[in-house]
């Protein structure tokens, strides 16, 4: 309240106001609830004003943890995650998160401090050319050159981050700009003539697609994260049901279509299921909605959907035709395009045979694993799914556990799946779960990591304790970098170069040191008892689960191979 009255008073008298205050006012206007930030020299003026602010501030233990938490928050809420880092090392520590958010189209608004305007370019203490460094990994970036620009730039940044294809936007604020004062500028409209995302689809292309659907004998929808960003999940379901179209998901799209739906054909891609990949291989009409034909999805492009007419709905025109030749391009917001498609009059679909084929594949080629006396990671995932009734928010790191989680946790609703897809950032999981839990305090948040990735951002356990977040930290511990080990086994004659840990911390004791209860789980019976005890209570917990270290992720499309060349599809 203090700040609000002070600000109103100042505004009324048109007294000068500091850059930092202008920035926080602008954040309030954008209804920012939480900031993930780390103070330092260049952002001290901002932190001084934050001292009186009502906005929740989360202090990560490393800036990288802060930005991944903001990504987790953004992924669950759809709102932009807000980050503050200081100049120089503070700013360079968030680079990985920026690149990750850029790849996975997550809206972030990131503030970095900068040395004072007068010393920019002199290699001053804690100076880094953050604009130069982040240009290729942000949707847009700014350096504030005058205090009066702050409200406009912040407003623009939120607009750019969240509209069109979302992405991270960075605002670099020199210390003297944050500390200096100016009269409150008049409100300015956003003028970006070079940025006008196309939201409504072209009618002719919608007609073309509708006709293609009515002609198709083997149609399939490939649904990506565009469905989630546009909140088009209801429309996707409605359209798929209306036209009896089977749906496959990309890794990042999971949750956009209910996994238990009879039309769901599964996860496609390198470790996707047989049915989904073969549906892509065999189809005669591929309708890509909000996916970018990433190489981990397509496999060898020469064998990708060889007989298909390709339709691609994407809000980013540059994605259309980038990797796969497209016959029906539709530049639009996924939800708007789906609405248009639903309203079209098309001939009733005639592809029951195709649906029967897919159902037969589903029965014949489910995910499988061999059970023996060792605890199988897949079993753990099945148990987690059952114990949480499929209602949890699942946050993963990167590697084998990520693929097992994607395969075995069936998402019935959107925005419950938080994972680093495009960049494949190890260390993402634990901090991202902090953001996810803050975004949805009532949900059970499962933070699933491997023992490798967990150790990349372990320090964030302190935040989990400090904020009392009831995150369920699950480490699938195989004492190795499982995915690297798997590739070395398959492609490098089992020469396990630096992929096995000869020494590991005692994770239970480590959790204890942070004030978090930890458990060691070595077999199914222990898992059963402990899951029942801890998964639904209101406390953070760390579970060190010793899984079979030799287990590999299957099925698999080896690099350079096509969807029809999957291996490990049957026991």
């Amino acid at each position, binding site marked *: 309240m203090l700040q609000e009255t002070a600000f109103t008073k100042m505004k009324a008298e048109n007294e000068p106001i500091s850059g930092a205050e202008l920035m926080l006012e602008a954040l309030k206007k954008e209804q920012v609830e939480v900031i993930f930030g780390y103070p330092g020299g260049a952002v001290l003026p901002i932190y001084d004003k934050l001292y009186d602010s009502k906005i929740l501030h989360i202090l990560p233990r490393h800036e990288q943890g802060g930005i991944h938490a903001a990504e987790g928050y953004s992924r669950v809420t759809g709102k932009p995650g807000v980050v503050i880092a200081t100049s120089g090392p503070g700013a360079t520590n968030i680079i990985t998160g920026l690149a990750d958010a850029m790849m996975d189209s997550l809206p972030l608004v990131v503030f970095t401090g900068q040395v004072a305007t007068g010393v920019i370019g002199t290699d001053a203490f804690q100076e880094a050319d953050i604009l130069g460094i982040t240009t*290729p990994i942000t949707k847009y970036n700014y350096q504030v050159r005058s205090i009066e620009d702050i409200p406009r730039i912040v407003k623009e940044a939120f607009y750019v981050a969240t509209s069109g294809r979302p992405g991270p936007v960075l605002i670099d604020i020199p210390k003297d700009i944050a500390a200096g004062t100016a009269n409150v500028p008049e409100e300015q409209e956003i003028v*970006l003539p*070079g940025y006008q995302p196309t939201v409504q689809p072209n009618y002719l292309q919608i007609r073309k697609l509708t006709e293609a659907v009515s002609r198709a004998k083997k149609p399939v929808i490939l649904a990506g994260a565009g469905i989630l960003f546009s909140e088009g999940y209801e429309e996707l379901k409605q359209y798929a049901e209306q036209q009896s179209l089977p749906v496959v998901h990309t890794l990042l799209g999971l949750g956009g279509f209910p996994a238990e739906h009879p039309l769901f054909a599964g996860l496609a891609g390198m470790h996707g299921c047989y049915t989904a990949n073969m549906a892509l291989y065999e189809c005669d009409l591929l309708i890509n909605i909000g996916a970018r034909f990433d190489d981990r999805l397509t496999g060898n492009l020469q064998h990708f959907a060889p007989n298909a007419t390709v339709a691609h709905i994407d809000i980013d025109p*540059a994605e259309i*035709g980038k990797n796969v030749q497209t016959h029906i391009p539709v530049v639009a917001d996924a939800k708007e395009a789906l609405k248009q498609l639903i309203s079209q009059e098309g001939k009733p679909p005639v592809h029951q045979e195709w649906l029967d084929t897919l159902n037969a594949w589903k029965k014949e080629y489910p995910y499988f694993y061999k059970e023996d006396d060792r605890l199988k990671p897949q079993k753990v995932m099945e148990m987690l799914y059952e114990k949480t009734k499929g209602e949890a928010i699942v946050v993963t790191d990167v590697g084998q556990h990520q693929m097992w989680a994607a395969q075995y946790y069936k998402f019935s609703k959107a925005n419950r799946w938080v994972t680093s897809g495009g960049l494949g950032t190890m260390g993402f999981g634990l901090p991202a779960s902090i953001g996810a839990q803050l975004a949805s305090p009532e949900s059970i948040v499962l933070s699933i990591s491997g023992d490798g990735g967990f150790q990349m951002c372990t320090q964030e356990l302190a935040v989990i304790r400090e904020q009392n977040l009831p995150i369920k930290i699950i480490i699938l511990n195989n004492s190795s970098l499982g995915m690297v080990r798997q590739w070395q086994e398959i492609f490098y004659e089992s020469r396990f170069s630096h992929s096995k840990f000869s020494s590991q911390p005692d994770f239970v004791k480590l959790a204890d040191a942070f004030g978090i209860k930890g458990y060691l789980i070595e077999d199914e019976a222990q898992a059963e008892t402990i899951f029942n005890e801890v998964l639904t209570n209101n406390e953070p917990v760390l579970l060190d689960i010793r899984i079979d270290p030799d287990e590999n992720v299957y099925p698999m499309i080896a690099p350079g191979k096509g969807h029809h060349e999957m291996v490990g599809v049957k026991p």
Partner: protein
Amino acid sequence: MKRIITLTVMNRPGVLNRITNLFSKRNYNIESISVGYSEQEGMSRITCVVHVDNDGVLEQITKQLNKQIDVIKVMDITEQSIVARELALIKVVSNSSTRNEIYSLIQPFRASVIDVSKDSLVIQLTGESDKVEAFIELIKPYGIKELARTGTTAFLRGTQKPSQAIKPYSIV
């Protein structure tokens, strides 16, 4: 193939960096780039000469450039009726014995001598890149001491032949 792409961009800090960054990030091959103010206040015009293997790459370049927030307009004008010019400054070894000979080469190219010293001449030449290259080849035997080229800058002629409508890359 060689293509000439013109961009109209907002004259904001870092805009040139964004464009060149994009070329290197996406592994596009750029031959020359020239930048300057345009007729509109706050806008600059950039002319890029790029080498591409096929139409797909060209389409991607155009789209990626268009995606930049500071870029207002992108046109591939290679196939149009255009005026394209480049300026070259060439310092050539020259003494009293070769001076006249060099002058006779300059004339048909409508180049001009803008500086003379005891042992060199500075020649200014404008024209399309082909012409500049032809002249450089011609003058090489005399010994080029220094060479500076601006890169091509170009725009559409006032009148276009109807058959040469601008090839649309937008798929909206």
